[in-house]
């Protein structure tokens, strides 16, 4: 038993020591913990850790195989996302004990705080005292045992799993119900209690999902899709699209869901042009070698930065919304063009990891597919707060796409209409977020950048928080960005246009004297290198492309991504449909598209008189419409309206 004294060493040093001891198979005892956060975070070896006192937030978080024994209390999120292994807490636990566990056993001798076992997938959370409100909130599987009283709204919006209560059932949550206790259930619980030497003679009540909210009551009737250009047409009144919407809503009695982002006419990059006459752009065949384009992202606090061969990366899109083959092709193309790929929600596949040179791993509120092992093989970690097409809302994945394989990776029941949580269990404000960021850094030894993905909503406040909470970079997504499935009205009317979002973000940084001190990767409807150059000139550090990459790989923009029967094999989990998508072929198509983007960036930068993309500035731009001028504060120059079309013709 090796003693680690937290009165003498930092938590970071203690965790490094624990990792070393774990490798050697030695046990450890932590003295003077004094409720410090992140104790034991990131351990992936079978080690026994005794904590002599109280631990703070995320004790034993993001671990696998380790066993912890805490003498007194723990703060929020004990055992966060733990795979196998166990934690025994002799005192009380704060809010969200056992959040997102995927197999661990957590035993709390005292009382536990609210939302116990939120979004847990597998394993057992056991509390000898009373639970606070909403135990089992949004749980997807596993078991909660409460020997005291249940607290209010037990099992609120649980999708699966079992909850056993020995004390009073104070009140039931939405979509939870009491069911008969089977003898095998009872035996299994008692076997668990015996194993942890917990004396218990009482009777148990069992609570499970009531099954009223797992699927939408009615699906949308399949109709011939309206092409994007008609869809986004100029008249708001009673056009064919409006009629179709009303017709379908009259059948399903709820909002419609669709793919893609804001489609109505909105100020966008077309409403911005270049100040200088660059009609000579595109004349130089060797322009790519003449412009400095390499871009490092996320190294400001000492993490290994992403190294991009041009100021472009792939926007986060999930395996789930997209087929495995599509994610694989995009990963391959990203490697061929030497830029970074992003997992999006729903986990990392081996094929994707192997194919991508640089891969960002995204964490969402449901913690679907999130785990310590994939974190440790990622090149960047990203906390998703929201996305441009639907800021403030969670993801939707219709039952057709929630196949057995996908459900296993995500740790959820098969065949439900998955509505991912819109909020993180453990991020309720900027103050909690800073502790979460630190947890991710601890788990990965401070090696990789930690970024945040923000949908453009309250950009001004959000960017300030991102800066103050120490993120390595931000991915900022405007409302022209797409989604695999979102409420139709939300996509059209909730977000903020991409050019407005970047402008507001940069103003916010200026207000807190942080101009140039936070790298912003802009996304949301980037169609080509021209949009990328305009983004950089507006002040973005780089841009991310999503939808355009899908289109390069064969997407026909029918906007039916949510249905799951994508004819091109992109937005589907149906093996028959997916067969149509050939990753090797499409990877090359996507790669050629990306190289086209590279050439456009180089041509325009060169024509504007710069040697490096990092020299682009607002001085290079003018606004062509009053709306774009107001949003970007660029000079209004309607006389340049023809110029943009000329440039586009020259470099397209």
């Amino acid at each position, binding site marked *: 038993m090796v003693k680690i004294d937290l009165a003498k060493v930092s938590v970071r040093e203690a965790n490094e020591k624990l990792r070393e001891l774990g490798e050697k198979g030695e046990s450890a005892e932590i003295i003077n913990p004094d409720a410090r956060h992140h104790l034991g975070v990131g351990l992936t070896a079978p080690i026994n850790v005794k904590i002599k006192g109280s631990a703070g937030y995320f004790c034993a978080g993001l671990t696998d195989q380790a066993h912890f024994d805490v003498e007194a209390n723990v703060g929020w999120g004990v055992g966060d996302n733990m795979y196998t292994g166990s934690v025994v807490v002799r005192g009380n636990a704060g809010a969200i004990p056992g959040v997102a566990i995927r197999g661990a056993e957590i035993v709390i001798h005292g009382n536990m705080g609210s939302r116990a076992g939120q979004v847990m997938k597998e394993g057992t959370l056991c509390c000898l005292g009373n639970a606070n409100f909403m135990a089992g909130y949004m749980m997807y599987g596993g078991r909660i045992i409460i020997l005291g009283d249940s607290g209010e709204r037990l099992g609120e919006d649980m999708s699966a799993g079992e909850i056993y209560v020995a004390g009073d059932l104070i009140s039931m949550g939405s979509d939870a119900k009491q069911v008969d206790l089977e003898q095998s259930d009872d035996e299994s619980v008692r076997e668990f209690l015996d194993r942890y030497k917990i004396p218990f003679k009482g009777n148990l009540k069992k609570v499970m999902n009531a099954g009223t909210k797992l699927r939408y009551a009615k699906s949308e009737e399949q109709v011939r899709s309206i092409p994007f250009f008609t869809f986004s047409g100029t008249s708001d009144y009673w056009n064919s699209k409006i009629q179709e919407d009303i017709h379908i809503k009259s059948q399903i009695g709820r909002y419609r869901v669709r793919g893609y982002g804001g489609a109505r006419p909105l100020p966008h990059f077309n409403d911005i042009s270049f100040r200088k006459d660059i009609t000579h752009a595109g004349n130089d065949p060797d322009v790519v070698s003449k412009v400095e384009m390499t871009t490092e992202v996320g190294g400001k606090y000492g993490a290994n930065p992403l190294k991009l061969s041009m100021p472009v990366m792939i926007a986060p899109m999930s395996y789930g919304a997209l087929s495995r083959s599509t994610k694989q092709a995009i990963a391959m193309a990203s490697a061929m063009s030497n830029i970074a790929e992003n997992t999006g929600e729903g986990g990392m596949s081996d094929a994707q990891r192997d194919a991508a040179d640089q891969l960002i791993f995204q964490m969402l509120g449901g913690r679907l597919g999130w785990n310590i092992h994939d974190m440790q093989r990622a090149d960047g970690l990203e906390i998703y707060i929201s996305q441009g097409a639907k800021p403030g809302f969670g993801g939707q994945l219709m039952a057709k796409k929630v196949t057995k394989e996908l459900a296993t990776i995500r740790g959820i029941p098969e065949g439900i209409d998955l509505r991912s949580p819109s909020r993180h269990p453990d991020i309720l404000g900027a103050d909690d977020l800073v502790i979460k960021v630190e947890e991710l850094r601890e788990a990965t030894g401070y090696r990789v950048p930690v970024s945040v993905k923000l949908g453009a909503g309250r950009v001004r*406040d959000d960017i300030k928080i991102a800066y103050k909470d120490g993120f390595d970079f931000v991915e900022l997504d405007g409302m022209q960005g797409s989604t695999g499935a979102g409420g139709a009205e939300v996509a059209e009317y909730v977000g903020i246009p991409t050019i407005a979002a970047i402008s507001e973000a940069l103003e916010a940084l200026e207000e807190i004297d942080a101009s140039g001190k936070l790298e912003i990767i802009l996304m949301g409807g980037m169609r080509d290198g021209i949009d990328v150059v305009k983004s950089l000139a507006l002040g973005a550090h780089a841009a991310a492309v999503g939808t355009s990459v899908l289109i390069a790989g064969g997407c026909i923009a029918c906007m039916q991504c949510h249905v799951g029967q994508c004819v091109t094999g992109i937005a589907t989990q149906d093996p028959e449909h997916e067969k149509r998508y050939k990753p090797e072929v499409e990877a090359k198509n996507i790669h050629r598209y990306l190289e086209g983007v590279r050439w456009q960036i180089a041509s325009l930068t060169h024509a504007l008189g710069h040697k490096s993309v990092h020299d682009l500035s607002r001085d290079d731009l003018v606004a062509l419409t009053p709306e774009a001028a107001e949003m970007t504060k660029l000079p209004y120059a309607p006389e340049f309206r023809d110029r943009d079309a000329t440039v586009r013709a020259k470099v397209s």
Partner: protein
Amino acid sequence: MCGIAGIMYKHKGAGKETGETLINMLDCIQHRGPDSTGFALYGDQHYGKLKLRFYVGYEQDNSAIDQIKQAFEKHGASLVEEEHIGENYRAVVNFTGDLQKFAYAMENSSPKATVVSIGESLDIIKDVGGAHDVDGRYDVANFTGTHAIGHVRLATESDVKPEAAHPFWATGFSDVAIVHNGQITNYWKMRRRLERRGFEFRTSNDSELVAVYLAEKMAKGEPLKEALKNAIDDLDGTFSFLVSTKDEIGYAKDHLAAKPMIMFENDDLIAIASEEVSLNRLFPGEALDTHEPPPGSYATWSKST
């Protein structure tokens, strides 16, 4: 977007180092709010008189202070003691008139000055920077008394400046201070209601609203405990806050309990903070028997007299 902490020593004539204690507690949770730090400290040296603190900046010329002194004279307050410390002007006066009127007059005494706190017992000290930075500028560590509450702030919706730091004094009411972690969503509705009754607000910060809301209830004779109970019903949003008066401290926590709070009590003291790590700083190495206040709860403690 913050961290809060409070301490009360129960025994008579405690004269404890509340300044030092609170600096330590806030230092532990500085990660929750690195922008500014503040203290509301209660001492008993000036009972029967009124202590005032103004924010006047570092300016060398004394015009603001001169104007404040003229306002003292005009409103019948006689100066007993004064000091220019950090960016504050601190004065002790003899005053017996209508405090609310006097307080509003002091607010308008100089365009260059704002009132930080007024009370027989209360001193509010707040500025940008960490707990130790603020201590370095204002000598908080040597402050002794019976109780104190404090705050670390991460500014999101408003600026980083001393006036926007916590604690907030209940503008117009002697000795009432608040530290708050959270957000009041029916701020404007409640503020307009109070403004219609003649109350003035110095900031657009929702924490000032909580302070004035509670102080008004207490001025009408409601005990602090009752005022906190009403606050949970009347205020929308998610919050954990601590409030202090000359003789009491109390807390309230909303029904959603999204803002953390944890407490420890023994025969000598009651300590409350956003995180247990602050409580453990007072008892290094010990496994404390702490208690997390349930959602929608409130409580108060009085110092022994």
